[in-house]
C-alpha cells in the first residue's frame, strides 16, 4: 500500500502573487484573473506544476499576477515558448495568455502551428478588438470601418474571427466566453484546463478605456439573451429571453427560426461538440451578431487527438526501446576508424 501525500487545499488567494495588479480600473481582465484564481484550486494540481506564458499586450501581464511559474515573453511568441516548455516537461500544466493583437496578428503563425500540433496547452485569448497597451489602434478583430487613432477614416481590412481560425487549424477544443459572465467563464476555464491537447478559449473582454462597449450587445442585460446563444452538447440551439428562437439548418446555411408556428425543437440544429468533423463548429463560429445571428458561447468542439508533447517524448522512449539509452563512445567509434600508434 502506498502512502500518498494529500494535496494541500489551496484557495484563490494562494494563487495571487505579491505584485500590484496594474490594469486600468474597470478592465475586463480583472474578471478573468479572478475566475482563474477560483478555478485553479479546483484542478487538484499543486501550484508549482502550473506555468503561465504570455506574449505582449495588456492581457500578457497576467503571469505577473499569478503565484505560479510564469514568463512574460515577447510579442506573439507565447505559444512557441510554451511549446518548448511543455515538450521538455509534459508533466506541467501550461497556460498561454494572449490577446487579439498578440495572438492573431504578430503571433498568428505560432498560434496556428501550436493548434495543429495539438500541444497540450490552454490558450486563453482575451479579445477586446483593440490595441490597448499601445493606446488604441485597431486590431485584427476590429470590425470593418472601425475608427481608431491609426484608422481615422475607418478600418479597411476584414477582421479575423479567432474561433474560425482555431477551428480551421482543427483545434481539438474550442470555446468562447464573456468576461462579465463569470459563472460561464469559470466553467469554460475549467473545461479548457481539463482538455488534453490544445484548448482554445476566446473571451470577449471589454477595454473600457480604448474600446468601451465593443461587446455591449453581448453583455447588456436587456439584449444578451437575444444576441448570444449558450451551446450545450446534445441540445438544440435555442435562444431568446423566452427561449422561443432557434437555429435551423437550411441546406448548408444556418437560419434563425421562431419555435411554434409549426417548428418544433426537433427541427433545430443539435449541438455536437464531439463531432469528429469540425464543419459544424466552424459553421457556429461564423454566426455573427452583425449578420443577424446570436453569437454562440460555450464549447464549440471538444475531441480527442494525439498530442505533440506526448508524441515527442514517446519517440524518445521508442528510440530507447530500439537502441537502449545509447553509448556515446560506441557512436563515436562506429563506422570507419583507424588507429595511429
Amino acid at each position, binding site marked *: 500500500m502506498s502512502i500518498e501525500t494529500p494535496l494541500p487545499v489551496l484557495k484563490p488567494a494562494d494563487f495571487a*502573487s505579491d*505584485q500590484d495588479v496594474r490594469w486600468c480600473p474597470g478592465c475586463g481582465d480583472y474578471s478573468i484573473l479572478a475566475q482563474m484564481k477560483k478555478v485553479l484550486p479546483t484542478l487538484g494540481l*499543486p*501550484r*508549482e*506544476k502550473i*506555468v503561465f*506564458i504570455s506574449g*505582449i499586450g495588456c492581457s500578457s501581464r497576467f503571469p*505577473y499576477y*499569478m*503565484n*505560479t*511559474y*510564469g*514568463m*512574460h*515573453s*515577447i*510579442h506573439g*511568441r507565447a505559444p*512557441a*515558448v*510554451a*511549446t*518548448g*516548455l*511543455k*515538450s*521538455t*516537461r509534459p*508533466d*506541467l500544466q501550461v497556460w498561454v495568455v494572449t490577446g487579439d493583437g498578440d495572438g492573431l496578428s504578430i503571433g498568428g*503563425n*505560432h498560434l*496556428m*502551428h501550436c493548434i495543429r500540433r495539438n500541444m497540450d496547452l490552454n490558450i486563453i485569448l482575451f479579445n477586446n478588438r483593440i490595441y490597448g497597451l499601445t493606446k488604441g489602434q485597431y486590431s485584427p478583430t476590429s470590425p470593418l470601418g472601425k475608427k481608431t487613432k491609426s484608422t481615422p477614416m475607418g478600418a479597411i481590412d476584414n477582421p479575423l474571427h479567432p474561433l474560425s481560425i482555431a477551428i480551421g487549424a482543427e483545434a481539438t477544443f474550442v470555446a468562447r466566453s464573456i468576461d462579465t459572465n463569470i459563472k460561464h467563464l469559470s466553467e469554460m476555464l475549467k473545461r479548457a484546463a481539463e482538455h488534453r491537447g490544445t484548448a482554445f478559449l476566446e473571451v470577449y473582454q471589454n477595454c473600457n478605456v480604448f474600446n468601451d462597449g465593443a461587446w455591449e450587445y453581448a453583455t447588456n442585460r436587456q439584449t444578451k439573451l437575444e444576441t448570444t446563444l449558450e451551446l450545450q452538447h446534445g441540445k438544440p440551439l435555442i435562444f431568446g429571453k423566452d427561449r422561443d428562437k432557434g437555429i435551423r439548418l437550411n441546406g448548408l446555411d444556418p437560419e434563425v427560426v421562431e419555435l411554434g408556428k409549426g417548428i418544433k425543437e426537433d427541427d433545430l440544429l443539435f449541438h455536437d461538440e464531439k463531432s469528429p468533423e469540425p464543419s459544424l463548429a466552424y459553421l457556429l463560429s461564423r454566426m455573427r451578431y452583425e449578420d443577424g445571428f446570436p453569437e454562440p458561447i460555450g464549447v464549440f468542439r471538444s475531441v480527442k487527438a494525439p498530442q505533440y508533447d506526448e508524441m*515527442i*517524448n514517446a*519517440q*524518445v522512449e521508442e*528510440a*530507447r526501446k*530500439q*537502441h*537502449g*539509452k*545509447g553509448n*556515446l*563512445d560506441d*557512436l*563515436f*567509434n562506429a*563506422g*570507419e*576508424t*583507424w*588507429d*595511429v*600508434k
Partner: protein
Amino acid sequence: MSTAAPEKQISNVEEATVRFCGDSGDGMQLAGTQFTTTSALAGNDVATFPDFPAEIRAPRGTKAGVSGFQIHFSSNEIYTPGDTVDALVAMNPAALATNVADLRDNGILLVNNDAFDKKGLEQAGYDTNPLEDGSLDKYKLHSVEMTKLVRLAVEGLGLSQKEADRCRNFFAMGLVFWLYDRSLDPTLRFIENKFGKKPEVAQANTKALKAGFHYGETVEAINTQYHVDPAELPAGTYRNIMGNTALAWGLLAAAQLSEKRLFLGAYPITPASDILHELSKHKHYDVLTFQAEDEIAAVTSTIGAAFAGAMAVTASSGPGIALKGEALGLAVITELPMIVINVQRGGPSTGLPTKTEQSDLWQAMYGRNGECPMCIISASGPADCFYAAQEAWRISSKYMMPVFLLTDGYIANGSEPWRIPKMSELPKIKISHPEAQDDSDENFKQFDPYTRDDNLARPWAVPGTPGLEHRLGGLEKADGTGNVSYDPENHQHMTDVRQRKVDLVADDIPEQEVNGEKTGDLLVLSWGGTYGSCTTAVRKAQAAGKKVSHCHLRYINPFPKELEAILNGFKQVLIPELNMGQLRSIIRDRFLVDAQGLNKVQGKPFSVAEISAKIDEMV
C-alpha cells in the same frame, strides 16, 4: 599483343590535392567523401572542401550546376584543403571550364570526353573543343570515354542507360584510387552497406569502380601512380568527421556530461540543417528535436526549454539569426542558459546559401536592440566543433546566459581526421538547481530569482519545483527579487551586471596561445574557419625567417585577457577575414591598434597563397 599490364612507376609524394567536379547530379560529393575516407583510413592527414550550388538540380550541363569536392591528403599535418589541385577530375565541359584554373601546371586532368559533345561545349561556353584545340597542353590530359566504358562495364545487369550512367562517379573514383595507390575496400564496404538491398545497383557500382581502377592499371598513357605515406599524428583511434556532425556530437556529449535533456529548436536552413538531421537520429540519448514553424519559434521554444531546465540549443545561419534577434534579447534579460549556433554563409539577405563567409560577427556582437551583450565563441575547424559545443554549454550554464557559437559553411561541410576521445576523459559540466522549499514551513522565504552567486549567475529554478514559483519576462527586472522595475538606478545596474557576466568569462578561459614568438614584426590574428590557411601561411613565413606569429581566437566576446599585450608585442597586426573587416573593427575599437585587414567575400575560403602574399607585402 601482350596481355600483361604495362609497367608502371610508383612515385612517392608528400602530399596531394585532388578535386572531383561535375554536374550536381553526377555524384561528385559522394566520390569526394569516399576518397576522403579511404585516404584517412590509409593514415593520411586530410582536409576537405565540398563546393556545391544552392540549386539542388541546376540545369544539367551548365556552369551554375557544377558541384565539386576537393581533398588534400598528406603524410604531414595539414590545415587546409589545398590551394592548387594536383589532379582534377572533370565530368563535363562546364566542370572543366569552371575548375581548370585551379589545376597546377603539369597537373593531372582526367576528363570524361563522352560529355564533350556540341551541346555540352556550348553550355560551357567553349567555341572549340578544349580536349582537341591544345588549350590544355600544360596539363597531363587523360581523355577517357567514361560514359561508354561504364555502359560496357555494367552490360548484362539489366540497367537502363540512365541508371548505368549514374555509376560514372564510381568509375572516376576507381581511376583516382588507382592513381593514388588506394585500396578499393572501404568503398566496396560502403557499396555493400548502402546498396545491399538493391543487388543490381550494388553490382553495377562495384563493376564501374573496378573498371575505373583497371583502366588505370591497363592504359599505357597513365604510367605513374602516386603514393602518399601515412602521416605522423598523435596516437589514438581516428575517424574522419565533418563539422556539423562534430558539432551535433559535441552537443550530445555536453548534454551527457551535464546530465541534461537536450532540446534543439530549429528551422531548416542551409548550411545548418545537418545539425538538426544528426540530432534527430539520436533521440535515445534523451534528445528532443523540434522542427519549428519558423526561426522565431525555433529560438523561443528553445527559451521555453531552457526555462524548463533542459540543455537548450537553437541552430541556424545568418538570415535565421536575424529573425531570432528579439528573442535573444529575451534570453539575455531572463538570464537563461542556451546555445545559439550560427553556421555562417554568404550574405546579406539570402546571399550565397551554400558558400562560406564570416560576415555575421557583427550580427552576433551587436545585432540586438538595447545593451545586449552575448558571449561569442567560434570553432576553428571541423573537429574543433566537438569541443566548442561543450565549451559553449559550460560557459552558458555556469554564468546563466545565452552563448553564441559561430561556425561557417566551410567548417560545417569540411572534414578532417578526429582523434576520438573517450567520454570518461571529457570534463564534466556541473549544473545545480536550487532545491524545493515548503511554503508551510515557518522559515519559508519568497524565492528571489535574481539573486546571484560569485559568477553573477542567478539560480536556475525549474518549473515543477515546490516553493520556487517565480515569473520571468522581457521587462527590466529588479536585481534580487526579479520583479518588474522601472527604477533608473536599477536599469543601469542590471545593464552593468549583464555586461559583467560576459566579461567574467575572460577569467575562466585558457591563456591565449601564440604560435611563434611573443614579439615580432607581424602578428596574424584570426578567428573561426580561417585557422588552417593562416596557420599554414604563418609557418611558411616563419620557415622563411620572418618574425611573424599567429594568434587564433576562439573567444571573441570577451577577448582573452592576454590579447592586448600580445597585440602590443608586434609592429604590425594583420587580420585576415572572410568579411570586410568585422573583427578588425572590433579590435581597433577595443585596443586602438592599427590592425590591417585581408578581406574577401567570394564564397570561398582563403588560399594559403593569398595570406602568404599579404604577409610578404607587409614584412
